[in-house]
């Protein structure tokens, strides 16, 4: 579990996860398109994310596609959140999202 939190403790890596959340199955080129990030740097960050199992890869011919793997996050959810009822937590998150919507867009 240390690996998950270490991986999430970096804004660049969270940004990469955000991009995969929006669109699954991206190549490295696609993933860093429009970002001020070198391939080499992105590769290192992705290796940390893979180590933490937050990103998983599939080969399609010669293309390596990256996917956000939400299973470790579901494990965190199971450990500390389930007891507080998923319904209630989801309701609060929805409320927060609704309130923050204007800020994010």
């Amino acid at each position, binding site marked *: 579990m240390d690996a998950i939190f270490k991986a999430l403790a970096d804004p660049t890596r969270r940004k990469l996860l955000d991009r995969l959340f929006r669109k*699954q*199955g991206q190549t490295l080129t696609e993933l860093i398109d429009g970002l001020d990030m070198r391939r080499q740097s992105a590769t290192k960050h992705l290796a940390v994310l893979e180590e933490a199992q937050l990103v998983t890869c599939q080969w399609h011919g010669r293309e390596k596609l990256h996917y956000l*793997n939400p299973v*470790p996050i579901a494990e965190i*959810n199971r450990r500390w959140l389930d007891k507080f*009822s998923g319904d209630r937590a989801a309701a609060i998150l929805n409320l927060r999202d609704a309130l923050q919507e204007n800020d994010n867009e």
Partner: protein
Amino acid sequence: MSKPEFVYMTLIAAPPEQVWKGLTTAEFTRQYWHNTRVRSDFKPGCKIEFLNEDDNIVVLGEILRADHPNELAYTWQFTGDSAAADDPPSRVTFTLEEIKVGTRLTIVHDQLEEGSLTATMISGGWAHVIAGLKTLLETGEAVDFTAPEESDCPGRQSVANG
């Protein structure tokens, strides 16, 4: 578009044989898979069904591959009351690889329609199902499906006891 839509991976501290059993027997699935029981002969061409507590079929599919205990693939279609029942069948593939600590389980759910209700329903659902399977196999602890309805559901209970 032939790219997989969703790929999930987890490492489970149990041998592939045990993980296979977790995926293919009703006594296991009801403990972590939204309280449903799986029913199939697990042979290519056979049907596979997931039944809820009321014996209604909630997911229906056809076994495409069953290479025990390494690979299992079947089609996936929500049935019955589900608003997603009209979506065409999609495909789920489980790959079980033996590793030092147990099993690397990879799940690919593909052949989904872009933006379909099925895609929306499964996108977050699998992570919880897989995390539940991992916990069950590693600790013997089942997912408690009764808790939210009994005391913690904010909609039905007053806040007096909270």
